[in-house]
Structures are given as structure tokens and as C-alpha cells.
């Protein structure tokens, strides 16, 4: 049975990973009809939502797991996967459990998580630092210190793409890595406006202020263009999620020798476990519904998980798979996971509305130096105060 799957994985590494999913699904005798929409989730999600609410849903669709699809589920537009999950014992195998939790609404499971993505990575170009004549930094603070040297060598210290979610992600990373777990949880989980306005946050904003100075002049939009600057040594480093790994890999770079990755920016080694999940709209066609179940099974299938995540650079959603072929960086990630230093991602903690407001704030903050950290913090506190 043909099943149309929409997603926004169109960069090189992503596309290669999707191919693995499709291969796995086609092997079940069904057919993956690809509905890729380029231009990140911001472009793709409205289209997906329109189609689902318009009554002409696709067979399956990517969302970040978390609260993006919550209302669709509540409106009864999404297929209940509880049966499949029980059959596949997802509760047992999927790790960390928070992934499945964010798929669960009113006790029912509505999505199949594909991967774990963590945002808290600093990617560094060894070549760039060599050129600038400084050692490859081991954490954020060293990186900041190396900034002037990079600049002198005509190298962009920090690469930061223009899309709003990148600025937001970078800032959230700073919170965890510089401010620590408690601050992060207080602000985003408890929506503690006082904490958001407090001195600890002020320090983060100061750091962000430094970051934006280092990022000035990047002049690219897409995250992978920014990553590419690091890959080619035009930029010193980039704060980006683990999916950046796919780009390095595609360019044939080797972790450790060509590039360096620092989880948690080399400071607080906490990772958030967000990621992508597939949702399955309710379809009338029985055959399609069965194919949907098959796809859900395929997604959590161990072989597919390995193949997919190796290409994508993300971590598998189940702990019981063999990742011996994983590279240096992935292994670092797995270590952190194993330590249990896992937090929920902001997509899980905050509503899309709040996320959007944060994006507006941070994309402006990083692009426009006339906004002082203090002013930005005040607006941040306001957003947290009204967040839900």
C-alpha cells in the first residue's frame, strides 16, 4: 500500500537518513511516497496542519515530538498507536522514557519517536584553530577566549544561521551548559518568571551577548550552510544539535581529527532528549491504516534505528541496539545518555506559541546589537511569565 509521508528532512545527511526509513518500510511490502518540503519545519508544518485539518491528511507526518501536534490529537485527528506500542513493547525499549511520555496524551500513545536529538553541542573546526594558531578549545569559555585570534586570522569565530530557531536553540543550550540543569528546569518546566528575571539568567544573557559578537557576520540562513563553514574551516565553531554531525560525515570529515565536538559545550554535560516523531492521521482507508501500523513498527525497528541514526547523526530511541559503528561524537553522546544526564527538550516543555515568541526574541537579539542583554532578559521574563 502506498503511504504518503511528509517531512522536512531535505539536507544531505537528512535525506540519506530518510532513505533508510523508506527502505525499511518498502521492505514490508508497502511503498513510501516521499513528501519532502524544504525550508525547515517552519515552512512545512503549516502545510501539514492545513492538510490534516482540511480533511485530506497524508499517511504519516513528521513533527518534533512534544506539543506541536497536541491539539490535532485532542481533536481526534490522529491515530491511536497504543495497540502497536503494546505489541512492540515500546514502553520497555524506548529510552529515555520521556520520549514516549511526550507521545502520550490521556494515556494513549499517538506517535512513534524516530530519534533523539540533543541540542547541546559545540562543533569545532580543528583546521580553523590550527590556522589561527591556538589550541582547539575544550569548552565554551576557551572558545570565547580564542575568538579574537580567530578573527585576526580572518576566520568567523562562531557560525550562526539566520533562521530564528537556531538562535533560540543556541540560547537554550547556553542556559543548560552555563546555568545548569536547575536553572533550565526552573525557567522552562516551572515557568518561573522570577528565575527568568534573576541574576543567574543575567549571566546567561551576558554570555549570549558575547556569542552574538562572535557570530556577527555569518550571513547565511540555513543551519547546514553555517555548519558547512565549520566543515570547510571558514568558521571556528557552531552551536548546533547533533544533526550537524551528518554534514561532517557527508563531507568525509573524521571526528577528532578534522573536527571536534563538545557535548554540553564542554561544561555541564547535560543533553536534552527531544527529537522527531512520526504521527499518523486518522485515515478512512483500512489498508492504509494497516500500512500506518507497519510504518510505526518499522520506525522503532532496531535495524532501521541503527541505519537511520547513523546517517542522521542522532541517537536511537532504544537502548538495546548495537552502535559499535558509531563514531567518536555519537559515542560521547551515548555516554552522557548512559549517565542519565537527560532533560526534556523545550519542544516538550513549551507550547509552540511560547517557542515562537522566544524565537522572535532571540533572533532579534542575535541579529541586532542595539538590544541590550538587560532589555532582552526583561522580555524573556515576560514571555516565561505568560507561557503555558
Amino acid at each position: 500500500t502506498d503511504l504518503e509521508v511528509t517531512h522536512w528532512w531535505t539536507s544531505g545527511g537528512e535525506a540519506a537518513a530518510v532513505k533508510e526509513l523508506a527502505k525499511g518500510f518498502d521492505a514490508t511490502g508497502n511503498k513510501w511516497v516521499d513528501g519532502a518540503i524544504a525550508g525547515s519545519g517552519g515552512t512545512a508544518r503549516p502545510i501539514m496542519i492545513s492538510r490534516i485539518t482540511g480533511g485530506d491528511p497524508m499517511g504519516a507526518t513528521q513533527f518534533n515530538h512534544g506539543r506541536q501536534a497536541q491539539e490535532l490529537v485532542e481533536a481526534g485527528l490522529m491515530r491511536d498507536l497504543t495497540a502497536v506500542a503494546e505489541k512492540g513493547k515500546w514502553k520497555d525499549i524506548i529510552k529515555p522514557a520521556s520520549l514516549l511520555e511526550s507521545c502520550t496524551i490521556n494515556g494513549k500513545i499517538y506517535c512513534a519517536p524516530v530519534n533523539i536529538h540533543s541540542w547541546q553541542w559545540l562543533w569545532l573546526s580543528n583546521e580553523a584553530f590550527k590556522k589561527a594558531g591556538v589550541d582547539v578549545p575544550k569548552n565554551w569559555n576557551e572558545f570565547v577566549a580564542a575568538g579574537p585570534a580567530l578573527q585576526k586570522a580572518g576566520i568567523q569565530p562562531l557560525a550562526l544561521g539566520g533562521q530564528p530557531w537556531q538562535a533560540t536553540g543556541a540560547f537554550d543550550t547556553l542556559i543548560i551548559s552555563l546555568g545548569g540543569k536547575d536553572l533550565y528546569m526552573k525557567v522552562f518546566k516551572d515557568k518561573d518568571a522570577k528565575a527568568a528575571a534573576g541574576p543567574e539568567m543575567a549571566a546567561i544573557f551576558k554570555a549570549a551577548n558575547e556569542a552574538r559578537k562572535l557570530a556577527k557576520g555569518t550571513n547565511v540562513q540555513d543551519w547546514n550552510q553555517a555548519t558547512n563553514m565549520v566543515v570547510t574551516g571558514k568558521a571556528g565553531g557552531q552551536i548546533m544539535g547533533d544533526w550537524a554531525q551528518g554534514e561532517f560525515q557527508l563531507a568525509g570529515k573524521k571526528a577528532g581529527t578534522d573536527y571536534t565536538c563538545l557535548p554540553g559545550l564542554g561544561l555541564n554535560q547535560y543533553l536534552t532528549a527531544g527529537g522527531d516523531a512520526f504521527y499518523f492521521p486518522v485515515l478512512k482507508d483500512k489498508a492504509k491504516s494497516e500500512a500506518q501500523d507497519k510504518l510505526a513498527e518499522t520506525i522503532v525497528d532496531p535495524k532501521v534505528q541503527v541505519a537511520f541514526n547513523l546517517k542522521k547523526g542522532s541517537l536511537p530511541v532504544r537502548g538495546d541496539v548495537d552502535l559499535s559503528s558509531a563514531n567518536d561524537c555519537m559515542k560521547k553522546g551515548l555516554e552522557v545518555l548512559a549517565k542519565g544526564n537527560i532533560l526534556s527538550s523545550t519542544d516538550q516543555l513549551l507550547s509552540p506559541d511560547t517557542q515562537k515568541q522566544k524565537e522572535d526574541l532571540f533572533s532579534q537579539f542575535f541579529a541586532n546589537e542595539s538590544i541590550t542583554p538587560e532589555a532582552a532578559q526583561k522580555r524573556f521574563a515576560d514571555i516565561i511569565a505568560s507561557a503555558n
Partner: protein
Amino acid sequence: MANISTLNSTAAGFDAVSPQVAGPSGRKPRKVLSRRNIILYGLLIVAALYYLLPLYVMIVTSMKGMPEIRMGNIFSPPMEITFEPWAKAWASACTGLNCDGLSRGFWNSVRILVPSVLVSIAVASVSGYALANWRFKGSELFFSILIIGAFIPYQVMIYPIVIILRELGIYGTLTGLVIVHTIFGMPILTLLFRNYFTSLPEELFKAARIDGAGFWQIYFRIMLPMALPIFVVAMILQVTGIWNDFLFGVVFTRPDSYPMTVQLNNIVNSVQGVKEYNVNMAATLLTGAVPLIVYFVSGRLFVRGIAAGAVKG
């Protein structure tokens, strides 16, 4: 009477009595490079360069290889002309899993374009004709609402239209998309047609009524044949508008019938490593080819039609 004179001798007679005045005779020596002409053509050429620059950049870039693009500047002509980017854009550029370039979208675009243009023009021309010649109480009110509707951003209307199409059960079908294009083409087209039909002599309409022709007979047999210029304008506007549409094409269809612009967007926005500017430019030119050809072929009629229909208030 002795004053029989041929016309030639009349002329000669005038000469005889005329005062002998010295002065230039014959053609005024006119400089081709008069100051006026230099300024006039100078301005036009400068403006033309500004308008042509992007096209030049697109064409030149689309024929360079990636290494050359990285090195050289965007205005320098290609050292080595290659059509590979064109081939790639057309047939093998990837989005997600599909690596068949724009070719997939081309026929989809045609399939969307033809019925949408036909239906929207048909509906708008009939409406314009009815508004111009068959007014009734309230017809102008509807028209005013329609015109104000022209100012509503599409994005604002998406949600209501999604709901309307869902209720009609035609969401995601070609019919639905054709209706959407018809709806959003309607204000401007109806205005054009109404103005045009109003500018035709009312007597024609009266004569036809006396001849016994009804609403449709007058429309098809009298008005339609006379409305060629404005149909050309409407056609051009709709062809460019619908061909270039991205939003409706992607929101109101399924992936297997995505128009070419969606592929273009995908090619341009899915960056695999570095941006392949040459492929992007080739894809851009390929996508723009249809409306561009329409313009080059019927540009003259376009101006005539504009003069006939758009300008009269």
C-alpha cells in the same frame, strides 16, 4: 475668361509674387546624436541595464561550474560553458528522496494551470459582463465587497478556505485548487472585465437585445469575440500568477501533484553541503520560462489590452 491655369502654373504664380527671402531650404540638418536623444536613450539604456542585470546574472551563473562560482564574481561570463546545472535542475536535483528535479512538477503545473486559467477567466469574464451590462439592485455592492477582497492577504484567508473546502469535501483535489485560484483571481479579473465591457458601446448590447439574443447569446456571440485584448491581459495575469503560485499549490494539493514552484522551492531550499547556485539559477530560469515566454510572445497585446480595460476607471 482667360484664367485657365493648371495647378502647376498656380504654384509658379505664387513664386513670382513672393518676396525674395533668404533662408534655409530643404531638410533641417538634424543630428542623430542630439542632446535630447542622448539623454533619452541614455536613461532608457541605464534603466534597461538595471532590469536586465538579474537575468544576466541568472543565465551566466547557471552556465558556470561550482568551482568557478566560488572563485569568480557573479557578473563575469562563464569561462567554460556547461549545461550540466540545467540538466541537473531539470532531471536530477533531489528533494528528500525524490531526485527527479523539476521535471516532475512541470506537468503538474500544466495540469493545474490549464483548468485554473480557463475556469477563473471564464467565471470572471461572465461576472464582469453581467456587472457591466445587466446591473440589478445590489450588484454593485457585491462588486465592492469583491474589490475590497483584493486587499486581503492570502495568508489570512487560508484558514477559512481550508474549512470551506473541507466542508465541500474537495480539499486536496484539483477541483479544490482550481476553485481557490478562481476565487483569488476574481477581484482583479472581474474589475478588468467589467471596465472593459463598460467601455464597449452600449448600443451593441442594445442592438443584440433587440435582435432577440439572451444573456448567454450576447455573451458568447457578441461580447466574447470583441474581448480579445482583455482576455489576453487576463490570460497573462493568470498564467503568471498561477504558474508562480507556491502557497496554494502546496497547501491545497498532495505531493504527487505539487506544482513546479514547490520543486523549485525544495531545490533552492534544500541545501546539501553548499548551495549549488548554478543549479538554483537554472531551476529558477526553467520555472520562469513559461510565463516569460508568454510575455515575450504576447507583450504587445498586453499593453493594448491594458489600455483597453484597465485604465478606464
